[in-house]
């Protein structure tokens, strides 16, 4: 990725650039694009889950995004142009999500769409992104991109998908925790992905999934399902999401009392939740997948340190201004990294305006290695241009004295699987 187009402007230069952008905004549409080449800001349409079930995530996705934009602009923006975020709430709803994308493309004149987390919003919006020819960078961890269901305009270069995450866990679970597993998951697509990929990965490790307990998504009490857990279970695998997870963990503790199997869960259950909440004492000694370690580790890298400081997160994964405000640390790094991928892609493509959108996608498709850096603080990554999906390290942490300590870091190789689609064969 080249820096050849980037100058490092002075503060005065930046103000001049912004002023020119404001002047350009008053020009007619056709004239604006001609101007855009030099001065108008690059507009990124940001689909935020500000309301609805995704709101806890949305808030932190927003903070991370703002921090990344501040950093990129302080370093001179993209091709010398400032980065501007146009944020719209999608209510965590697929219909509104599609409408918001239309607004980005047709009303705000955004260069790209970005930032969606919840899978149903991604899948509901992606067809519109393809029709509007708006590059759509999602931060969703869903397998929808790499499964081939979407289109050439939709990419996920900032976070690994659930298929990678799940299969990379199986070796550690089988070798260290136990071979007989019972799975508890929500009875919808996200849970089914866990069920299918983990069961297959355990088989490959010589392990066995004894029972699969699907919980209806509207459920608020769980004890009545626990007797379905077979007694010879060695490892309990859980991946509940939504506001009822605290109840889930608490009731699990009350059910097992002093004698429990090993427990392995996905931190998705407890994103934005304090591990030290009353009732969660039961989690002591259990294991979690983490996309990015919430607690600063003893071997913390300088990149993680700088990234935490930029976003405003303390060493315990909480907001620096309010220690009770816990971040969604395992996922939100995806926003930071994706914005840097957009920057790198635009610079490689010599992006000047919406006319270069196809070139931007080709430039991102051409990416492969993403080294561990301030731009990629979670770790090194490998991007697969054919499937539009990135692959990276995963972390397994153990709850010790009320904090999460990393006990294992998977290799990128553990997360790879064979391609299910080649988007580069689709026309623009």
């Amino acid at each position, binding site marked *: 990725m080249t820096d050849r187009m980037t100058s490092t402007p002075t503060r005065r230069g930046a103000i001049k650039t912004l002023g020119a952008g404001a002047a350009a905004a008053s020009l007619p549409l056709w004239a604006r694009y001609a101007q855009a080449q030099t001065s108008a800001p690059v507009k990124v349409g940001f689909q935020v889950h500000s309301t609805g079930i995704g709101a806890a995530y949305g808030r932190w996705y927003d903070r991370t995004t703002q921090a990344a934009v501040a950093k990129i602009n302080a370093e001179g923006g993209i091709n010398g142009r400032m980065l501007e975020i146009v944020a719209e709430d999608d209510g965590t709803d697929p219909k509104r999500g599609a409408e918001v994308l239309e607004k980005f493309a047709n009303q705000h004149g955004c260069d790209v769409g970005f930032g969606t987390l919840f899978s149903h919003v991604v899948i509901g919006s992606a067809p519109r992104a393809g029709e509007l020819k708006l590059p759509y960078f999602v931060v969703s961890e869903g397998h929808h991109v790499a499964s081939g269901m979407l289109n050439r305009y939709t990419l996920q270069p900032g976070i690994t998908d659930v298929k990678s995450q799940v299969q990379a866990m199986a070796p550690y679970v089988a070798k260290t925790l136990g071979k007989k597993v019972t799975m508890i998951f929500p009875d919808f697509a*996200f849970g089914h992905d866990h069920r299918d990929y983990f069961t297959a990965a355990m088989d490959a490790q010589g392990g066995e999934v004894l029972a699969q307990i699907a919980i*209806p998504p509207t459920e608020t009490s769980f004890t009545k399902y626990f007797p379905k857990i077979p007694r010879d279970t060695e490892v309990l695998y859980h991946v509940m999401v939504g506001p009822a997870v605290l109840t889930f963990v608490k009731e699990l503790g009350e059910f097992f009392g002093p004698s429990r199997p090993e427990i392995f869960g996905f931190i998705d259950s407890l994103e934005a939740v304090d591990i030290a909440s009353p009732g969660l004492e039961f989690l002591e000694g259990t294991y979690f997948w983490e996309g990015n370690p919430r607690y600063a580790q003893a071997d913390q890298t300088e990149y993680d340190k700088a990234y935490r400081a930029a976003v405003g997160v303390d060493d315990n994964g909480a907001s620096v201004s309010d220690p009770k405000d816990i971040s969604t640390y395992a996922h939100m790094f995806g926003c930071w990294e994706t914005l840097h991928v957009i920057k790198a892609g635009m610079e490689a493509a010599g992006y000047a305006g919406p006319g270069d959108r196809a070139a931007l996608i080709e430039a991102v498709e051409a990416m492969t290695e993403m080294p561990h850096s301030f731009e990629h603080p979670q770790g090194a990554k490998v991007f697969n241009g054919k499937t539009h999906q990135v692959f990276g390290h995963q972390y397994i942490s153990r709850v010790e004295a009320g904090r999460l300590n990393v006990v294992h870091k998977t290799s990128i190789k553990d997360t790879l699987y064979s391609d299910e689609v080649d988007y580069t064969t689709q026309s623009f």
Partner: protein
Amino acid sequence: MSDLRKSLVLHGGVLVLLFGLQFVLPAYHHGVVARVMVMASYAIGYNVLFGYTGLLSLGHAMFFAAGMYGMGLTVGVLGTAPALAFGVVAGALLAAVVGALALRTAGVAFMIVTLMFAQAGYLTILYFGTYTRGDEGFVIPQAQRVLGAVDLSDPANRYFAALALFALCLMVSLRLVHTSFGRVLIAIRENEERARMLGYNVFARKWAAVVISGTLSAAAGAFYGLLFGYAGASFAGVQYSIFPLLWVLLGGAGTVLGPLVGTLFMFYLIDLSSGVTSAYMLIAGVALVLLTLFAQQGLMGEVRARVWRWLP
């Protein structure tokens, strides 16, 4: 002019206006109006039952979803036009069965029974996640969104298809109020006992209203999936049963144009206020409360009460 003629001129005028708008609207609003026309068709379907027959259903999302999934799950096998028809028929059949059962109740119990059936339908979509992909839903590939030689993912074609659907629903609704069948429905709404004593088979007519209403809703659902390329379980949730009720009440229950006005009003209320503040739900909420206080019969209902007394 006779009232009938005035009504034809007005509604014809609205359709002509919608037809003409596509040439002048900026891209964003062009897309919005297309979507609003599809959702307004859903609201028209709802209005047949609620506005004209006086039956408050809280389960119409199941008909909308029946159309959407009936089309979406078969389009890969049957092809576009047959799948569209399949979706509509699926909705009609579901409405026939649900109607026959639910109409044994009345009032609030009818509301709850329809709500329960819809909830069961929503959970069924999740239960058969292998085919439906549950809450996540699935994309309807562009190749399957071609009706004859018309690519429905193209903005102009999409607008035209949405307009065709809306015009059809509007005409069904307009025709209904001018037939004796429609007048009996209104009579049932006003006084069911009296309608029965006059010798009308009330149950059969209410059942027919449920079927018509469900069929129009299913058609809207099938078109939505086809035009916007997505089918998902959120469209079967209780929220999407409340929406048409809200749109119809806002626009004016028991008016032919009310559903369009209500849908359009609600969309822009949220869209514009979300540009100003992230607390747009607050604005929407306050607006709803104010409307109930100051525009008691909905927007078109107020127009009828104050200006055009002939409005159907």
